[in-house]
């Protein structure tokens, strides 16, 4: 089932279909949830491992003397993230800054897949027998929720660790209307807490999904005029992907520092 621009609906749907792995035995016994989106997993792991190897190399060769080009690049990123974390988070944590760096670079790299021509990798996939391929991992809800839920687990963990279970409950129950209205406060606070991972995941997903969709639509235009909206959208998208990676990182830092500070 290769891409066919003459049938737009099929073309678009094809581009939004994941390469899934769902053995029949699992499906019969447990249902559709027991499915793996192989393309998302593959590209995210490849990009993540690439990022780690790159940074590990730089870290191993890191010298206090005159830094090389690789070290310079990595140091710029590290300084950037470290500065943001120090501005926002006023405690001591060995986790937050590396976490923020990982999120920023990894999400950026995954978003960057959006800038690769929409048909390039799927065509190569078709040629080697892979018929469905979505190359941008951040257009998969599983990935964005995977990130945001992990962050949310950390937020809960630190809330309970720093404030104690009772302290955390008190904080949820006593704001914003004071302790006597805890029946109103509690649902509000819980919705407020749950909205954190939800908004994190959906914001990233929505931006990238829409961006990808527009690239697909541009690819449906006649070939001689694709370059005008294509290049415009691509240039604009360079901003979007960086911004989204930054926002995800920044909100993670903010949520975690909120978890460390009691009101």
């Amino acid at each position: 089932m290769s891409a066919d621009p003459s049938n737009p609906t099929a073309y678009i749907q094809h581009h939004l279909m994941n390469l899934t792995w769902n053995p029949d035995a699992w499906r019969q016994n447990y249902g559709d949830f027991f499915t793996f989106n192989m393309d998302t997993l593959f590209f995210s792991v490849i990009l993540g491992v690439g990022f780690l190897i790159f940074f590990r190399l730089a870290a191993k060769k890191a010298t206090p003397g005159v830094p090389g080009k690789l070290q310079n690049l990595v140091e710029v990123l590290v300084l950037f993230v470290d500065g943001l974390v120090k501005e926002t988070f006023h405690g001591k944590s060995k986790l937050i800054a590396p976490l923020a760096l990982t999120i920023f670079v990894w999400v950026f790299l995954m978003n960057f897949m959006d800038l690769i021509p929409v048909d390039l990798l799927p065509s190569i996939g078709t040629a080697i027998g892979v018929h469905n391929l979505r190359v941008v991992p951040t257009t998969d809800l599983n990935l964005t929720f995977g990130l945001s839920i992990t962050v949310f687990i950390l937020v809960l963990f630190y809330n309970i660790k720093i404030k104690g279970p009772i302290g955390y409950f008190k904080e949820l129950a006593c704001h914003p209307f004071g302790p006597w209205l805890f029946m109103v406060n509690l649902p509000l606070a819980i919705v407020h807490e749950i909205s954190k991972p939800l908004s994190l995941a959906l914001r990233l997903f929505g931006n990238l999904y829409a961006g990808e969709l527009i690239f697909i639509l541009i690819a449906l235009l006649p070939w001689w005029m694709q370059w005008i909206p294509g290049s415009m959208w691509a240039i604009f998208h360079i901003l979007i992907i960086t911004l989204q990676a930054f926002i995800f990182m920044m909100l993670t830092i903010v949520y975690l520092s909120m978890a460390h500070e009691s009101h």
Partner: protein
Amino acid sequence: MSLNLSLLGQMLTFACFVIFTMKFVWPLITKAMQKREEEIADGLAAAERGQRDLELAKHKVTEMLRDAKLKAAQIADTATKRGVRIIEDAKEQARKEGERLLQIAKGDLEQEKLRAKADLQQEISAIVVAGAAKVLGSKIDEPANSDMINQLIAEVGGE
């Protein structure tokens, strides 16, 4: 499009990545940067210290130069003075020597004069005796009269 097991896979992957970054990437880089920061700070401090030392050394050099000049001037002064004194001494010595020589010469002269005088007295007394003998026609008793003659001569010579 729906959520499935990939979610768990992604969470696991994410956790692994974060742990890796936390353990093997972040500390090394920040340590290197911190060390560099310290080294730069040390270097700046050393440079400042060096500058201060230089300033100090310059002051010292000026002082030493001034001292040396002063000393040189003093040495030259003493040398001049000593030279003058040596010349003075030599002059003095020469003067004294000259005086001594003059004195000696004068003494010699005096002696010579006295001797000449004595000779002359002797000769004159002989002449006087001879003359008187001729006038008296006889020999004068030389020993008897010599006292008187000598007195006479002394009177004449004393003039």
